[in-house]
């Protein structure tokens, strides 16, 4: 479903602020795969997701979604097939518009816009049923503006909006990092349910080893703009958080990780 070949990107090339988040990434994701991505800060996880979403265009390499080369396409063009949930719960929704209107924007994804009153009674009752799945008692508040909701509620709605129009690919960028543990667990539960229901091809960046191991059928580990480990489902079953940390320790030995990086990893994942 996703084929990434030798993807490279350099920001601020030739200046003191030069950053090279992607230094030759190769990745093949099959339809229905649920890939979790882990790695240190600045290892290129989020950049990889942004590159797939089309937030920026790569310097070289190619991205294929479902066999179609989308390397040179803008984010809004790819958005027909790709849905995203951001780390910041405020990014994924329009705060001054109502729940129904936000859901309607998501529903319009990939559909031709017409000057018609699309948000009719039929759609509203459909949205009410969808919102009911969130089990957050939001189904009676369809006409409340999003700005009045909590971060967890907004993130759950963003997730719902992302899966509303059955995308080919779902991108989750640390979408529970800004939430309290209880809400985070609730959002993870919803994620699992939605992904499994539609068998969505999913890339999920996480800072939680536990999430990385529990969710999905494959885990990749990134460092310095490259994929350094690819752990398939069979292996994952046998892995523990400690195993993953050991893997990082091994990297330390091969000088691929500095002491500080390892330390930051322990802090974050343990």
């Amino acid at each position: 479903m996703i084929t990434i070949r030798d993807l490279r990107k350099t920001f601020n090339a030739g200046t003191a602020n030069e950053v090279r988040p992607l230094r030759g990434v190769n990745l093949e994701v099959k339809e229905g795969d649920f890939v979790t991505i882990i790695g240190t800060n600045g290892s290129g996880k989020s950049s990889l997701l942004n590159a797939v979403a089309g937030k920026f265009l790569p310097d070289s390499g190619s991205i294929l979604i479902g066999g179609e080369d989308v390397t040179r396409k803008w984010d809004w063009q790819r958005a027909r097939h790709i849905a995203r949930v951001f780390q910041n719960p405020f990014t994924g929704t329009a705060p001054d518009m109502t729940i129904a209107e936000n859901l309607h924007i998501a529903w319009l994804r990939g559909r031709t816009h017409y000057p018609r009153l699309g948000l009719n009674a039929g759609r509203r009752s459909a949205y009410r049923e969808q919102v009911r799945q969130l089990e957050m008692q939001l189904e009676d508040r369809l006409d409340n503006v999003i700005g009045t909701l909590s971060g967890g509620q907004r993130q759950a709605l963003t997730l719902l909006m992302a899966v509303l129009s059955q995308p080919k690919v779902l991108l989750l960028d640390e979408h529970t990092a800004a939430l309290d543990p209880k809400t985070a667990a609730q959002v993870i539960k919803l994620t699992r349910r939605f992904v499994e229901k539609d068998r969505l091809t999913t890339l999920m960046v996480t800072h939680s080893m536990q999430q990385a191991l529990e969710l999905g059928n494959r885990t990749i580990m990134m460092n310095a703009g490259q994929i350094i480990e690819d752990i398939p489902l069979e292996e994952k079953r046998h892995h523990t958080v400690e195993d993953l940390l050991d893997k990082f320790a091994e990297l330390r030995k091969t000088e691929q990780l500095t002491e500080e990086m390892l330390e930051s990893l322990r802090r974050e994942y343990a």
Partner: protein
Amino acid sequence: MELWVGAICLGLVYAFTGIGIFITFRVHNFPDITVDGSFTLGAAVGAVLIASGANPFVSILAAFVAAALAGVVTAAIHTKLNVNGLLAGILVMTGLYSVNLHVMARSNIPLLDKTTCFTYLQSVNPGMHPEVWTCCGLVLLNVLFWLLMTLFLKTDYGITMRAVGNNPDMAAANGVHVNAYKTFGLALANGFAGVSGCLVAQYQGFADIGMGIGTVLMGLAAVIIGESVISSPSVAAQVFGVLLGSVIFRLMIAFALSIGMNPIDLKLLTAFFVLLTLVISAGVARGKGEKGGVLGALGTVLKLRRFRYVTAGAVLAILAFLGYRHYTKGPLRTGQEYRIGVVQYTSHEVLDSARDGFVAELKRLGYQPGQNCKLQLENANGDMPTVSSIIDKFNTEKLDIVVTISTPCTQAAINKITDRPIVFTTVANPFVIGAGKTETDHLPNVTGAYGEARMDKIVNIVHTLIPRKLKVGTIWNPALANSVVHLGNLKKALASCPDYTLVETTVTSTSEVYEAANALNNKGAELFLLISDNTVFSAFDSVMKVARRNNIPVFLSNLDRLQDGTLGCLGFDFSGAGAQGAQLVDRILKGEKPSGIPFEHYRDETFGLNLDAAKNFGITIPDEFIKQATFLHKDGKRVPGPAARKAAEGPGPAVPGAHKRIALLVFNDNIILRQTIGGVMEELEKSGVLRKYNMTVDTKSAQGEFAMAQSIAQDFVRQQYDYIITISTPALQVTAQVNKKIPHVFGAVTDPYRMGVAKTSAEHQPNLTGVASFQPIAATVALMRKVLPNAKRIGIVWNPAEACSEACTYKTREVVKDYGFELIEATVSGTGEVPDALRSVLGRKVDIFFTSGDNTVNLARPTIAQILREKKIPYFTNAPNDVLQGSCVSIGADYVEVGRETGRMAVRVINGEDPRTIPIKDYVPKKIAVNLPLAREIGITIPEDVVKQAESSEKQP
């Protein structure tokens, strides 16, 4: 009533701009100020179409499309070129200024007689007050617009557009092409502004290049007021709030005006009100955030209410305070009889002196503000909507008469006021704004005084002072209607001076004037000749700075700045123009109908010369100019000139018995007529009648305009002068038409019999007599043959509109045959056309050029003389003094003698003879003057006996 209804109407037409601003600033979160330009673009496109007869509803559609395109350009600059949105708007707004001028082709298009949407609306008026009916129509339109807009914002398009504005990242993540929607939103917003502009143009009756200034702020005020009055997340409520906000904003200003607040403070009040609203809504939002639940919500509502009362109370208190101060300073309300409203567009030297002249003359005529009349002086400070509101206020207050100072005020007034008299002044041309077709055929409730600055005269003076190749520089603002007219006149006038070339620079604001003056200097301008341009005059010191540094003489029209070292100025006395306005007001208040009062041309011209500056530049000023000057700058001091209007001679009601007054009208100021006047005055003084009857002589020149001559003649009759003397044929014609009573003596008239004032010398209009001085055409042609025995063709250029010239030309046609000449003719309608006509005649190989008594052609004599001198063709004329101005041989009347003859006849009339019994005197002198140096230069030998004859008549120069 009209004030409030008018304010609501204005609010309703500006509401479309409000919605535009709502879409950009609120929906899109995009500070787009293109609207200032697209508003005008809509007005311009609409006005041009309507003026050319298009359906006004179609014009609204066109205005929408044009203005929407402007929005697309802003969006393209912002999205494609990644230019900051605010900057993109500023760029397009600035550029649109030029585009709008191109669209309109001038700075102001009147729509008074055109079919607009409002004309259609009135045609289905069931009998309501027109303004109220207009208001009903606009309310309906706004309700429809409100419904459509609300519906639109709820469609898929609308929802997506709102999402793009609210959270572009979210929209992009959901597959929305953010830039396309931004473009769409900007197009829509500017389109609505265009519609608003088009409607405003139709409502106020004209489109003006400056009408868009401040539209963004007005729209923003509507949005903010709307939000504070109706705070609801519902789209319908938000849109309604904007429409309501627009109306409230206009009502607020109307209220401020109605309690007599000085319009100067309006802008400050607007800013203050908007700020107050912002602060309060922020406070309310904080209150909302802190409290929850039903009780909290109730508390918020109550708090909101309370705040609203506080806002309203504060504004009312401020208004009341300012109003109170205005009233305590203003006129008292006791014992008033007449109510006169005066509205002035803005403050500058010309308008202020017109207003002061108006007030002074009104007082002189016996109207004492506060005692027997109430005088309201309003100044709109350059803001068109304020003009509109002031006029609504005048309407409401049932004033007896409205006086408008400046063209924009007049335009707005004649459109809004139909049921009471309007007197305008300081309007260059009332016909282009639709106040009338001619001086007598005009809107029934409108009359006034007008006049365009005389560029031809200025050019003539300058050319006499500096008769050489010269680059003349001028600066002007293409946005000002008057400047466009004046520049056109200047170009026309310069066409008659082939050795003068014009270099020009344009400005759009006062801040550019200094740079423009420098640019002119760099282009090699050797003289600054400034037309009457308000922008340039406001920054006049910048021009002077450049002129002084580079030693460039400056000549001005209409502005008196001799003390700053300008060489000279010629224009109208605008306090006199104001006084004329006051006299018209007096006539109307005494019962005359405005429909029966023709438009008057300005009467008082001012002419100032700076002798110090002339000395510095090494320019010699001829005595004849000094004699004409109304004031002079000499040895660092300002002194009244010989032609100054003495206070005692000023127009005013006649005081019978106290002294007698003679009115003297001359058609223009050419040298022949000035000599005639000299002769008349000489004789009047010599005879002693002036002292004997304690007489004063008021001399008026019509500046070569029939319209002005007519106004002056009418004024003579109205003021009941005791005697009238006219010099020149047109002066006689015009005066004989309007005056059938006052004794009238004429002079410098070629053929009074042709004109119908007399059948024979003895049989003439009973109240007039005078001197007919026939041009010695036959003698002239005979002389031509004598001087040039081999010549074949005589060229002549003449103006068929001049009766006297026609007579001369017909006579010449007859006579030339007898002497074997062929006459080559060309006709002109103005002095500016003379050089071209002359060249066309010269192209047909003439041997002699001849000008007889043609006033139009005579004004261009120096130019003609120069061209002929270059081509070595002898120039014959019929006034001996012409040799001083470059004619070769002149034979005809000594006009000083004609004047003396006229003066003697006037003395007879003053001494009690009835004009009826005095026969017209036919005076045919044959004085010869020869320009020997010129004759030698062009290779012509003047026969000895002719030279002798010339010497015997007078010594040669």
